[in-house]
């Protein structure tokens, strides 16, 4: 590895963190806009989530009586884990200096850590809604885990590594692998996981006002001002990172690979643009799909997740028997 590759990797990692941090609210804006247009509405514009965040930062923070350090720290932990994940996941470059620090397992576990922090904060408020949200979120998390690990398993078998950079690089070198049954099955399974993890329809409705149907929203009912800004921003970043993960695991084209010298640096803007395009496309598709679906009953969600687990298991089996 030459010095400038490392430089390109570092710059790339920094750039992708900045892109995710700045761009994720825009992605949420795009998704809301798509939905609004399909419903015949005009929509608030893609900048609206950023306006919301700016406004929240200008408001006062509230510490409800009876809450403690867990409640205070949870938004920070949530956002910090999302930021670290954004630095590790191959978004613009496969040569992130953090790539060796956390593989795909570690990234998903890190995101789970953020969820756990938020669930504990919700329990800390001692409100019925907080407990309800935490309980449901943890149930979904527990059932999502097998699918995630199984999909990782399927993807890592042809590569012999669970490191994200390695998986993406190998797909770049053998593009025909993308249309293999392994890859397709794992893609569908991971997509279900992403929907469940980010609390989208049909698992959870991010726009609901009805506490009894909430999962994620019920956990953050007590947050106000800058705390809420962190939570919303972190949720947007998690959505972006997870969608980006799916995009680059199955369609990594455009990403800056292990080129040497200034070529790698020059490839970065293109990589960032390609990533933005891919994630916008995925996000738009997700939002459009949501228009056609209703939220599932809480106790139908396990069936959906079990289905995705079976797909992932098939992917693993295919990776062995079709290899």
């Amino acid at each position, binding site marked *: 590895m030459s010095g400038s590759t490392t430089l390109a990797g570092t710059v790339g990692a920094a750039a992708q963190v900045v892109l995710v941090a700045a761009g994720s609210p825009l992605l949420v804006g795009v998704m809301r806009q798509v939905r609004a247009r399909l419903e015949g509405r005009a929509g608030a514009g893609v900048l609206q989530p950023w306006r919301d965040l700016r406004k929240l*930062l*200008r408001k006062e*923070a509230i*510490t*409800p*009586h*009876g809450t*403690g350090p*867990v409640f205070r720290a949870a938004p*920070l*932990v949530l*956002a*910090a884990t999302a*930021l*670290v994940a954004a630095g590790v996941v191959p978004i613009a470059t496969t040569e992130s200096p*953090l790539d*060796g*620090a*956390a*593989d795909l*397992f*570690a990234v998903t*576990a*890190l995101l*789970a*850590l953020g969820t*756990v922090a938020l669930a*504990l904060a919700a*329990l*800390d*408020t*001692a*409100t*019925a809604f907080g*407990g309800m949200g*935490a*309980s*449901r979120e*943890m*149930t979904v998390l*527990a*059932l999502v885990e*097998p699918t*995630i*690990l*199984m999909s990782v*398993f399927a993807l*890592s*078998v042809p590569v*012999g*590594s*669970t*490191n994200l950079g390695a998986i993406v690089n190998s797909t770049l070198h053998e593009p025909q692998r993308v249309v293999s049954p392994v890859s397709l099955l794992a893609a569908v399974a991971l997509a279900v996981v992403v929907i469940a993890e980010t609390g989208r329809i049909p698992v959870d409705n991010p726009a609901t006002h009805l506490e009894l149907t909430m999962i994620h929203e019920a956990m953050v*009912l007590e947050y106000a001002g800058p705390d809420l800004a*962190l939570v919303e921003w972190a949720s947007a970043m998690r959505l972006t990172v997870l969608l980006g993960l799916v995009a680059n695991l199955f369609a990594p084209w455009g990403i800056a690979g292990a080129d040497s010298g200034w070529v790698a640096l020059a490839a970065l803007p293109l990589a960032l643009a390609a990533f933005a395009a891919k994630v916008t496309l995925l996000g738009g598709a997700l939002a459009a799909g949501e228009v056609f679906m209703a939220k599932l009953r*809480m*106790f139908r969600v396990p069936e959906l997740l079990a289905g995705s687990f079976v797909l992932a*298991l098939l992917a693993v089996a295919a*990776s*062995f028997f079709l290899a």
Partner: protein
Amino acid sequence: MTSVTGAALSASLGASVLAASAGAVLPRRIRPVAAGIGTAAAGAAAVVAGVAAMTGRSWSAWLPELLPLAGVRLAVDPLGGLFIAVTGAVAVCAAVYGVGYARPADGHGGHGLDGRTVQAVLPLFVAAMLLVPAAASVSTFLVAWELMALASLLLVVAEHRHRESVGQAGLWYAVMTHLGLVAILAALAGLAAAAHGESFDRMRAAAEGMSPAVRGAVFVAAFAGFASKAGIVPLHVWLPRAHPEAPSHVSALMSAAMVNLGVYGIVRVGFDLLGGGPRWWWLLVLAAGAVSALYGILQAAVATDLKRLLAYSTCENMGLVLVGLGAGGLLVTADARPLAALALTAALLHVVNHSAFKTLLFLAAGSVLRATGLRDLDALGGLRTRMPVTTAMFAVGALAASALPLGNGFVSEWLLLQSLIGSLGEGGTITAVTMPVAVGALALSAGLAVATFVKAFGTGFLARPRTPQAEAAAESPAAMGVGMGAAAACCVALALVPAFTVPGLARAVQVVLPGQDAVAGQVTLRLAAASSTMSPLLIAVGVAVAAAALLALLRFATTWRVRRRARLWDCGMGPMTARMEYTATSFAEPLQRVFDDVLAPETDVNVTPLAESAYLVDSVSYRARVGDRIESRLYRPLIAAATAVGEAARRLADGSVHRYLAYGFFTFTGVLIVLAVTR
């Protein structure tokens, strides 16, 4: 032969005996302190001995006079050293903690734990646990094993005067542990007979030439015996009974040190003495481990008794360890030795990690129990402000137990997953079928563990107190804090720089798989068998840096400097009471519903109408209980059958002398006939 290992181990055993005698003779006032210091010293010396053995300073001794007929044969190799070191470390934490725990609190705790029996037996229990991995002959091993069982039994029933359930738990434990002993005795005696010698060296040498049937029988019997000690489903039934009822530092010793010795036994007999075996052995181990992991964590997820939850979590973690052992054995048969070494390293590291966090969790649970008299999560809550130290300690342990990054459990589960994933291509169809299922079981148990420990910490320690007892809780004495702190420090060290254990673990694995170095790297863990890497320290630094940057950013970007304290949002009405909180039961209800086919919860709704009309309700009572299904479906019928056989056997002895004479006559004739036919 003298060496650091031998000297330290002897010092440790000596200190235990001194501590035991101090516990037996000193007056009550200074008894816990003297015995506690002695036990802690014994533990510390054991750590030194174990670490010395793991750095390659093996030691052996032969004391022919100590035990009649057989003599005592001791040998400490790196594998035994690992278990000695772990046991010693747990003993240090538990002993220091015990000094404070034995002191009566207002109203609760104490419970005569400063009595002679407990104070004298606890050091002996530690000594016995240190002797088991040091034993190098069948007789020494069995004596140490039985000493350990008896000592722990006495400690389990220490509080039998205070709660009726203690006696029941003791009975279950006594029966299960002795059935286990019978299995181990049969296995080792059979092995010794086939090897014509009872020293481990002789057996190791002779195992190669034995017939597969003998080896298989020995392995299955030994596995059953050791699995019952390790709390592997379906032999786990004693564990969720005995661990909650034992005094908490004893629970910690049992759950974090004693169950490990079951794992030790499986490794020692299966890998070392028998030198590995055919595939089906390891499939058996793997299957038992996977079932245990899933069943254990499912029960833990719906448990509301804090210590019972922790006991089931032990079933889960030992199950994970067995998955690693089983995968290791399978990979050896597939001749994938680097991967096998990785699986074994992962399993042993998980033993170490589990001991660290389970000690911490049981000690913290004991601290709660002492302060409130409660183990029921549904009745706890709000301990964060009342017991800040205990809460912080439990948080560290819960993070580790939920196998999330920044906790130590994550590191070993990551290694285990890597070994399972890497083995898909090795060993043909059988691994290709087994490994995905094992990964699925592992993943589900990891996910459920997260839910379980969010529940335990969130409902038990955060939120609001649900009962007056929880409201009146006060922080525990300093000695208990120190004991917990030591365990927490181990957890943090293992979480951030797990690499420091790698050389020792590698030597322990090399006892059974010579020449393999599975894991390398200081900050970033690198694997010999796969190209995956992971760095717990860098992840932790990354999260810390990101959090600091965000704090700075917030300071810069926000306009309001003061946080307002305000009422909870109670929908405008209120006040919110503790009755409105989610309890542990309600938290686990969705999971219970999802898995009701496995858990088979019993619910009972009773509606009493008013006398005037059947449509007007006077009162509704609702009862829900999640029992251990294996206990009710497997053990209850067995116990019923045994009782029936016993009843029937009574008819054989009706007191008639004629009948007894007839028994004697017919038996004698029968023996003569048999002899006549066979000779």
